[in-house]
């Protein structure tokens, strides 16, 4: 891992189009600004870790559960629901 020291207001540039700026320093945390193209996702790391853990829990669920799944509420049938389901792609980013 590359470790750099920055003062407030200073930046780090990654690749051609990602910039990280130190915005503010507080007692026990740092405010960081991130400038990146729309198609580069930026996540708090703990979210990615939480998704990984939830996947493991979901796999364990599938291994164990049969009775509880029977209690799964049945979705309400909606007229034309087939077509609605396919319109979740609201837009594509370039």
């Amino acid at each position, binding site marked *: 891992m590359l470790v750099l020291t920055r003062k407030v207001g200073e930046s780090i540039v990654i690749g051609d189009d990602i910039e990280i700026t130190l915005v503010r320093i507080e007692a026990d945390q740092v405010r960081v600004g991130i400038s990146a193209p729309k198609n580069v996702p930026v996540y708090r790391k703990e979210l990615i870790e939480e998704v990984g853990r939830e*996947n493991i829990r979901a796999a364990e669920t*599938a291994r164990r559960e049969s009775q509880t799944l029977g209690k799964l509420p*049945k979705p309400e049938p909606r007229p034309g*629901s087939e077509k609605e389901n*396919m319109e979740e*792609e609201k*837009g594509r980013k370039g």
Partner: protein
Amino acid sequence: MRVKTQRFGELEVDPETLLLMPEGLVGMSEAKRFCLLEESPDRGYKWLQLIDEPGLAFVAVNPYDFYPDYGFEVDGKDADLLGLERPEDAAVLVLLTVGPGGSEITANLVAPVLVCTKTRKAKQVILQDERYSTKHLLVGGALETTGSGVG
């Protein structure tokens, strides 16, 4: 093709219905080849079964059946990865977890599995939307969260 499953025994699966996740699942990058099984048509859920691991499967639902207001934008890079060209070719699954005690069934709405039905490729995407977390209580209709998952 024949697929061994822990839950259902050995099954004959139409190779045309297989799903390929080139990047695997989040935290399980080797989990790539799946088949989608329906336990019975009137059940609301499906099984996402890993072909190469009989013991690894997931319970999934179509989120729109339970959360009519659910939605997200598909990133161009993800669409390219999946060969997704038209909205009509997109389908979404969310993975379910049963909480301790077996009382709560929750859906992971922040990390849905986006499927291109034409190419049979899929990816688990992580949404940047503060409304969604890894645990949404599954009740018909309203978008609910237990608040215990990371959003």
